[in-house]
């Protein structure tokens, strides 16, 4: 028998070249009309959101270095995948992030200071998804949220909140995870359930090439997009540093999902240009050449080049710089004003219904802490 094929490849949907030219790859041609339908204002908004994301990254890292955050989780390099996919969702859609999708939350209406509260150690969650654009909570146990998203999508189906034929109201679910998380059992189980129940759902993998210090080649020998077909759904690989392609492929997948055509999987090829978190040191495991390769594919300059070619004004870019700087400065100011939670928070909402241990232990802690308020002679200390 001849040697069987053990090398697997997948084409990449790309609309914008790294140099900023709109030159769709063959598999990208079909997505061009979705981009052509975007207004100038929408196209400019993509740029603005990527610029804001990058500026917030700098503010977050600085706050961590100054001891104001326990951790910062940077998105530097992944702005196009996040901004493009987020803008592909409609208001009624539900988005389940991992923990790196800050700009996705902001686009959905979340005040990013809530994310800083989480990273500052003031809360375990931080926001009510229903009041924040259906942007669900960050989930730190990798791939757990893929199942929550799938269950939520099943609920949409059972409720008849999808596939009625009205794209203005039919809802779909978009779930984010990373290349490392694809190795978790939950990620595969979610694909099994989504396919089995034909959920209105899009799985969006940001393949940023590194799971902390381990390269994606350790997670998978074949393109992650090929996993879609293995589970019975379309799997599409997209240039995740191309905001237009990220938008168009996600838009198409979500529209199919909301129309009742079932789930799909997107692998967005991108690169984590910074560290995994501020606790990481990427110089220990990756080369300068690799970083240089990806710097040449930075999603922001390429998109700026294209916008400039279309006639975006220097004033527009200057305004965006100013606005992004203001947003970051405001965020920093408000992060420093965040109040520490009071001790009652330990016991609140552990259960929805009254629980004797919560009441007993909260009361004990209060008594213990306040016992130091009184001096031995009985006077106030």
């Amino acid at each position, binding site marked *: 028998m001849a040697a069987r094929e053990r090398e697997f490849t997948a084409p990449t949907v790309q609309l914008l070249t790294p140099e900023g030219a709109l030159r769709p790859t063959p598999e990208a041609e079909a997505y061009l009309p979705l981009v052509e339908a975007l207004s100038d204002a929408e196209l400019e908004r993509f740029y603005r959101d990527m610029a804001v994301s990058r500026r917030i990254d700098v503010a977050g890292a600085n706050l961590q270095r100054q001891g104001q955050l326990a951790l910062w989780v940077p998105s530097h390099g992944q702005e196009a995948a996040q901004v493009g996919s987020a803008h592909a969702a409609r208001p009624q859609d539900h988005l389940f992030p991992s923990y790196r999708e800050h700009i996705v939350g902001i686009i959905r209406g979340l005040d990013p200071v809530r994310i800083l509260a989480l990273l500052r150690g003031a809360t375990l*969650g931080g926001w009510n998804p*229903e009041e924040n654009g259906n942007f669900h909570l960050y989930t730190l146990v990798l791939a757990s949220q893929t199942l929550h998203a799938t*269950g939520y999508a099943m609920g949409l189906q059972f409720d008849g909140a999808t596939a009625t034929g009205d794209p203005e109201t039919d809802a779909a679910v978009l779930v984010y995870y990373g290349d490392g998380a694809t190795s978790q059992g939950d990620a595969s189980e979610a694909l*099994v*359930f989504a396919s089995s129940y034909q959920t209105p759902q899009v799985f969006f993998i940001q393949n940023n090439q590194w799971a902390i210090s381990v390269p994606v080649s350790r997670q998978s020998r074949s393109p992650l997009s090929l996993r879609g077909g293995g589970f019975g759904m379309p799997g599409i690989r997209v240039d995740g540093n191309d905001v237009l392609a990220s938008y168009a492929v996600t838009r198409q997948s979500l529209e199919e999902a909301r129309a009742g055509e079932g789930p799909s999987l997107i692998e967005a090829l991108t690169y984590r240009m910074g560290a995994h978190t501020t606790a990481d040191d990427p110089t220990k495991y990756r080369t300068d050449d690799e970083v240089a390769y990806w710097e040449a594919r930075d999603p922001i300059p390429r998109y700026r080049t294209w916008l400039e070619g279309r006639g975006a004004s220097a004033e527009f870019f200057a305004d965006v710089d100013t606005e992004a700087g203001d947003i970051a400065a405001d965020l920093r100011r408000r992060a420093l004003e965040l109040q520490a939670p009071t001790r009652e928070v330990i016991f609140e909402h*552990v259960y929805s219904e009254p629980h*004797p241990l919560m009441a007993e232990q909260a009361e004990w802690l209060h008594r213990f802490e306040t016992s130091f308020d009184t001096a031995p002679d009985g006077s106030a200390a």
Partner: protein
Amino acid sequence: MSARTEEETHVTDAATDAAPIGTASADAAVTTDGSGVRGVQTLSMAKAITAGLRDAMRADDKVLLMGEDIGPLGGVFRVTEGLSAEFGEKRVLDTPLAESAIVGTAIGLAMRGYRPVIEIQFDGFIFPAFDQITTQLSRQTLRHDGSVSMPVVIRVPYGGHIGSIEHHQESPEAYFAHTPGLRVVSPSNPHDAYWMIQEAIRSDDPVLFFEPKSRYWPKGPVDLDHTGLPLHASRIMRPGTDVTVVGHGAMIATLLQAADIAATEGRSLEVVDLRSLSPIDYGPLLDSVHRTGRLVVAQEAYGNVSIGSEIAATVAERAFYALEAPVLRVSGFDTPFPPAALETEFLPSPDRVLEAVDRALAY
């Protein structure tokens, strides 16, 4: 050893005089004759749970069942028998075979307002879902600052005495009782099972509902009109004066047998059914210890770091001066559940309970 018919009841608050014992039927709700009185039926625990599930599903269309083989087959123990025919496959979900995904998707469904009731096929198969239960399900309400509740019930057939193969006879309840954010209960008889499953489903918190599978088949009276106790209340199953013996689930039948034998020897055991393992209702237990001065805790589970350990510590803290003897534990051994041919050696028997009672009385 004393003979004890399976139909005998120890459910002290079941109103046995409210109505004649009806014919055994899982379809409890249809016995209503218009008076609103449904009476007392004789049911196995398995069919009592079926009836409880059916009533809960009729009362609230957000209740749905999820699990493996629970549809047309009715589950490997037939607890969901007939429910997919009545409610359809959108409310009785025969899911793909993946426990973590069953719990994980139930979390998403609960976020959407559903009240999923999961069946884990056997005790030893809950562990693929352990992460979703302990790191996700248990914390969603807290992480959402109360804006989301998690009314998810996880039914787990558990325990030994059925002569089955590995991973089919275990008692993993302590793992879940240890986890904040979860509630853990276990009925010991059909009446409690019928009511407790409905209360568990009504709870806005996640409830692990441990069903003692060796007690699935013995029949007992189920009073369909009187709920009796709240979900998390413990119960004195048999009053006594010399030694308190406490347990849960299938162990209650063992403790009642032990009490019968002890009575023939002139010793009076008070049998306490915990019913709830998290939270534990210590009031009746502490009252009992104050009367008897002696306590034996019995469980099928491994003894090390177990529910029994917690009870022993708590009773020592709260009733130290009432105790005439140390609290003694009777447990499964701290080994994997052995091959079924040895299960009677492993599982606490009435004699093992009485041996501990003898030691307690010898102080």
